[in-house]
């Protein structure tokens, strides 16, 4: 018994206490959160714009060239691994930035945008086409019909899928260390390498990711339920 507690205390010490290693975890956690949150915001912005333009083009035949470009963007970023995208961003396209964290935010944001675009588009297309026709037959232009009539109804289909995408994003950020970002996963890996003790460092990191994902999932559930409730009170 004594030996076990001794071992645990020793492990705890060299993982967190010696040379203030707990700071590495805090820094990693902070970076992981920064990347996930900023990338989500960028992704939602890009994804919404791309989705709306694509729907608008399908409906009106306008903005054809932009639509083709956006189509290529979706194909490329959904068709290649995020790690490769990260490396290309860091070593080629955004080489001049010299800021790995910023590059990670941008790379994950653009990557996430490609997935969000499909989510938003599917949400828009799930709204009865009769809604669009009613708007257009009143003389509302296509884009305004989309914003005023279709999107508000699409939101409830979009939000749950968007939540899933965010959870995936949180976990995916763990590959940011490929471009030297000191995120949470990297903190665990670094501490393991210095202490040569894998148990506490790696399992602790896994635990933090798990709690993060678990908490976010729970939060999203609550949000969804709220939305469904207000929906019952209002519409349909």
């Amino acid at each position, binding site marked *: 018994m004594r030996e076990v507690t001794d071992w645990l205390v020793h492990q705890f010490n060299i993982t967190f206490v010696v040379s203030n290693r707990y700071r590495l975890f805090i820094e990693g956690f902070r970076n992981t959160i920064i990347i996930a949150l900023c990338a989500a915001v960028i992704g939602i912005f890009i994804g919404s714009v791309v989705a709306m333009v694509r729907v608008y083009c399908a409906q009106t035949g306008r903005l054809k060239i932009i639509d083709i470009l956006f189509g290529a963007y979706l194909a490329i970023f959904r068709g290649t691994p995020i790690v490769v995208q990260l490396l290309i961003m860091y070593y080629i396209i955004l080489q001049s930035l010299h800021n790995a964290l910023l590059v990670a935010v941008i790379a994950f944001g653009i990557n996430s945008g490609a997935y969000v675009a499909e989510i938003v588009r599917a949400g828009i297309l799930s709204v009865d086409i*009769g809604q669009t*026709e009613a708007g257009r*037959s*009143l*003389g*509302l232009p296509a884009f305004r019909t989309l914003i005023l009539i279709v999107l508000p109804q699409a939101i409830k289909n979009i939000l749950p899928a968007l939540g899933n995408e965010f959870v995936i994003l949180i976990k995916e950020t763990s590959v940011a260390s490929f471009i030297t970002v000191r995120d949470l996963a990297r903190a665990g890996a670094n501490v393991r390498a210095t202490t040569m003790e894998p148990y506490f460092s790696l399992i602790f990191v896994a635990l933090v990711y798990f709690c993060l994902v678990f908490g976010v999932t729970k939060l999203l559930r609550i949000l969804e339920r709220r939305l469904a409730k207000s929906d019952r009170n*209002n519409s*349909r």
Partner: protein
Amino acid sequence: MTEIIAVKNLWKNFGDNQVLKNIDYIINQGEKIVVVGPSGSGKSTFLRCLNLLETPTSGKIIFEGEDITNASKRLNKIRRKMGMVFQNFNLFPHLTVRGNIILAPVNLKLMNRDEANKRADKLLARIGLSDKAETYPNMLSGGQKQRIAILRSLAMNPDIMLFDEPTSSLDPEMIGEVLALMKDLASEGMTMVVVTHEMGFAREVATKVLFMDGGRILEEAAPEEFFTAPKHPRLADFLSKVL
């Protein structure tokens, strides 16, 4: 008589499916055109071509003297003048009854919010649904929904109203209230094109009844003649089934 809509050599294909075959028709101000015919004969497509919800494969739609077939920029302006009422109402579920009625007039800056609200109140009072102004469409009966949908179009002060089977998805006991509102509009002089299976309405209200089959207008006559002395054998056959 003033021409509101002229349809010239209208063809419409969906892929290989020829749905409208060389339709020519003129709708004059104040006319009530009722369109009947078997399902799949192209009635909806014809109606939807009038406000360019469907793009004609060839031919022209002239609205108040202007060729609107390729008027992509002006189209939104022109559609304000053509109300459309759908079989499934297509009310906006996320907006109140009032919100449904004032959305387009306010957004297109035809009225300010106060004016639009006043207009909505007036319209609602007319059909006795003033107390429903702040409720959402899901709280309404089918008949109420369809009458609100009609008001939503009327709020734009259209020159013509297009109805695509406005009573077909209603429970029988609610059909009357919708038809009554449409008759009301008719008697006020509104120009109307109505696709319907309500032969009683056609008899009573129509200035002309059209029979469509296979993408063509096979017969056009005043209701009396249309129902008592059909010339085309297909129409006689159709009437024997529906009357």
